[in-house]
């Protein structure tokens, strides 16, 4: 979205966007879903609309209720209260004693462990959903071969499931989930058992496959990279509730809550005090404890009622910081610091800088020659800076 249009108030700028998107048809609707395990409230009055044909991701730390939510959609768990609609069909509603069993929900699912049955070969594993629905033999053969072709497993149909590699097992699991042409494909951390290279490859493959067949995908993951690169929309979950919902770009660039800000991407914060509030920017003073302090100008503000002298924190992503050698011109929004440690990580340097008592992290291109111990000037671009209440 266009940053200059960002409205200077703690609003929810994606509201309009959501409204615009809501014109697309919803395929799945969760209303006030609540689920306890013992005394532990795992999902807390959660409501969601998932649109036809999108890749929707539930992202959150372990124990946030994302997998439980997915399993309730699949019917593997029943909510304690709330409703789930598939298009106009009510799938589950405890208060009305309605619960459509899993095997009638017409969804496909890829499990974290892939759940490859050890006693069936690839063909029979993929044919399973068709056979369970009494599809004719010739038809079974045609569709299985077609889907195996699609996931790149042609010629492997006689292999035993456990004899396959991790990536192949995942393809089998995907083929099994898709062979019945379900309307919704559920993915429960499907990439977490693969090594990094394979994970990236499978992600691209699966995304391309989804674009081709147009199935609606609901993904559960704790890996933010996976969520950002794979999804059309993401819901960040925390303690059974949705913290923020939006496109990957919205979530990354404009997190609305402290949790969302800290969960996605790296983030550095500095303690500050509000100096003045203007239209389109907030001026804060950093490092006021010792001497004069420096004024920084931030574009975004998440403090509900900002007033002069209020203690706040300013936040910025490390990649937005620009580090210069110490002899540059005096610019606005610049702090002085000293390089503590310079770590070469291949494509760039990770630069740990000490500013007074505080330490921050910045990224430096590998062609920039800096040395540990040298003094530097750190530029905080206006657009990247945001002001948050002090927690």
């Amino acid at each position, binding site marked *: 979205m266009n940053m200059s249009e960002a409205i200077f108030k703690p609003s929810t700028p994606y509201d309009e966007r959501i409204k615009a998107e809501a014109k697309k048809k919803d395929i799945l609707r969760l209303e006030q879903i609540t689920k306890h395990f013992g*005394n532990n409230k795992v999902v807390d009055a959660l409501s969601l609309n998932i649109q036809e044909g999108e890749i929707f991701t539930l992202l959150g730390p372990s124990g946030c209720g994302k997998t439980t939510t997915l399993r309730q959609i699949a019917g593997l768990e*029943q909510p304690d209260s709330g409703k789930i609609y598939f298009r106009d069909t009510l799938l589950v509603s405890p208060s009305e004693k309605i619960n459509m*069993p899993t*095997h009638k929900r*017409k*969804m496909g699912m890829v499990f974290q*462990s892939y759940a490859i049955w*050890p006693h069936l070969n690839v063909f029979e594993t993929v044919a399973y959903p068709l056979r*369970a629905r009494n599809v004719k033999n010739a038809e079974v053969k045609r569709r299985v071969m077609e889907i195996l072709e699609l996931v790149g497993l042609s010629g492997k149909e006689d292999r035993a499931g456990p004899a396959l590699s991790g990536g192949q097992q995942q393809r089998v699991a995907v083929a099994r989930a898709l062979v019945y042409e379900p309307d919704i494909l559920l993915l429960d951390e499907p990439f977490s058992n693969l090594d990094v290279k394979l994970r990236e490859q499978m992600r691209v493959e699966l995304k391309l496959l989804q674009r081709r067949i147009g199935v609606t995908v609901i993904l559960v993951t704790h890996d933010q990279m996976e969520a950002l690169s794979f999804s059309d929309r993401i819901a960040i979950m925390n303690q059974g509730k949705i913290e923020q919902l939006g496109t990957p770009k919205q979530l990354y660039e404009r997190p609305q809550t402290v949790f969302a800000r800290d969960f996605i991407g790296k983030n550095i914060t500095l303690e500050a005090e509000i100096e003045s509030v203007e239209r389109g920017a907030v001026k804060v003073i950093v490092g006021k404890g010792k001497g004069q302090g420096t004024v920084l100008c931030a574009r975004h503000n998440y403090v509900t009622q900002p007033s002069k002298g209020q203690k706040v924190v300013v936040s910025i992503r490390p990649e937005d910081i620009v580090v210069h050698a110490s002899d540059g011109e005096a610019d606005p929004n610049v702090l002085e610091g000293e390089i503590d440690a310079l770590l070469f990580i291949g494509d760039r340097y990770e630069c740990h800088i000490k500013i007074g008592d505080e330490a921050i992290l910045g990224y430096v291109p590998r062609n920039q020659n800096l040395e540990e111990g040298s003094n530097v000037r750190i530029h905080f671009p206006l657009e990247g800076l945001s002001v948050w209440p002090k927690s």
Partner: protein
Amino acid sequence: MAKVIAEQSRLTSRGFKVEAGAIFYTLILAILLVVIVYPLGLLVINSFIVTLPDGTEQIGFGNWTIAWAQPGLVESIYNTFNMVIVTTVIVFPVGILFAWLLTRTDIPGKEYLDFFMWIAFFLPTLPVLMGWILLMDPDFGLVNQMFIDWFGLQKGPFDIYSFWGIIWAHIVIRGVAAKYIFLAPAFRNLDSSLEEASRISGRSTLGTLLRIVVPVMTPAILITLIISLIHTLESFEIERVLGPPIDFFVFSTKIYQLIAEVNPQFGMATVLSLVILVCMLPLIFLQQYINSKRSFVTVTSHFKRNIVRLGAMKWPAFILVFGFCMLVTVVPITFMVLGTFMSMFGFFDIESVWTMDHWKRVLQDPILIKSIWNTVKMAGGAALIGMLLYTLLAYISVRTRYRARGMIDFLTWLPAAIPGIILGLGMLWMFLGVPFFRPLYGTIFILILAVLINSMTTGVQLIKTNMVQLGKELEEASSVSGGSWLYTFRRVILPILAPVLLSVGTLTFIAASRNVANIAMLVTGENRPIAMLQLDYMADGSYEAAAISGVFVVIMTIGVAFIARWIGKRIGIHI
């Protein structure tokens, strides 16, 4: 919060989650209660019911006072515990030694010795006992005759019909082999990195043994000890054959004697049963306690075993174990088979020692053929029903959230702790006393029921272990793929569990074929299986016919075990 939870449990109890499944599970529970708890309850009640001379019944302590006044009864309880303790004190250390030798040392021929132990574990009691009678009978026993010939003694030194004869029988018939079978896996799975970590941390070999090996092994050893105490306590056949000639009774043979009399003394038998059950309670609780506290050390694939070098002791140790293996398998079975070809069992110095007459006579005897057929029906039926029933019970316990599944767990475990003869007595009471069940008395069906209950604990436990390892996602994947519960059970759960199911079926078949204690009370002339026929022949002194029956019992136990092991190597059955 509390309100929410109350609301939730109200919803649940209103039946939102009550599916057809729960009704089905309750039905299974009800059946278990009827066949296990109801007979035991009958025993308790009937021990307090006194029959007056005019035939009326009233509640009272009559049975208890009469029972205590009978000298034989108290003596039988004393004999039971005396026998159990002496046997355990001898057998247990030997079992531990053998388990250690065969799993953690470089003793030669490990696989073969292990195989012999395995055979000894599956061999039925009576045929082995027959072999030993032939060797150690005070009058005609071969060993005794050798001693008389060699040393010019008046009388042989050994007498199998004695207290120590009974102890010896317990040692060679499954005693040591059972301890080995239970302990060997625990010894084998002890990860040597545990020991090595202790060594690196500065402990000596002995210090490591005391601080690491013993504490790690203690739960397994204690559980085996308790199980073996319970097993010895339950023993019946050995005492039934060797006891009466010297007027030695343990509680199980006493109960049998009380019921088999012309005027069966049911009252006293129930009193004796209850006393034994009460004596066993501490053992049962201790076992539950240890089991609940025991943490299962999982074995990773990186696990390594530490092998102790025996050095000069290597061959003496081998000879010790090998000699014992021969004593418990080849020697007694050889002599039992020899016995079937002898004119008179045990008499080698008569004119025509060898004959085929017994075989000719017995093979034409419809009783033997009928008994074999009975065993096939009983053991085969139990194996088939057992596979299905045990799977169902294991499934309820492992996979469902059925509320009374704890109760089902308890009921499946209970039969292991209750002596077969007592369960048999309770069932006898139920089948004779309840008009609804009476038509079943004398049929093969009630024998199947009795042996099913007997094998239930092992069977369910084996399947449970495998089911726990079977990831729940495998089932859920079927569900999401459109498979109903039944379809999932048929196409995913059963096929994956097939190897363990076949193992359980085989074990049930073998246990049923050799079982005597559980069915002794329930057998009639009509439904008598071959093992029971052998016992009856032995009790009558017809040793030649008993030996021939014994050959068939061996075929139907160890023979089946061999076949299963041979086929199992191809399709993954382990027994």
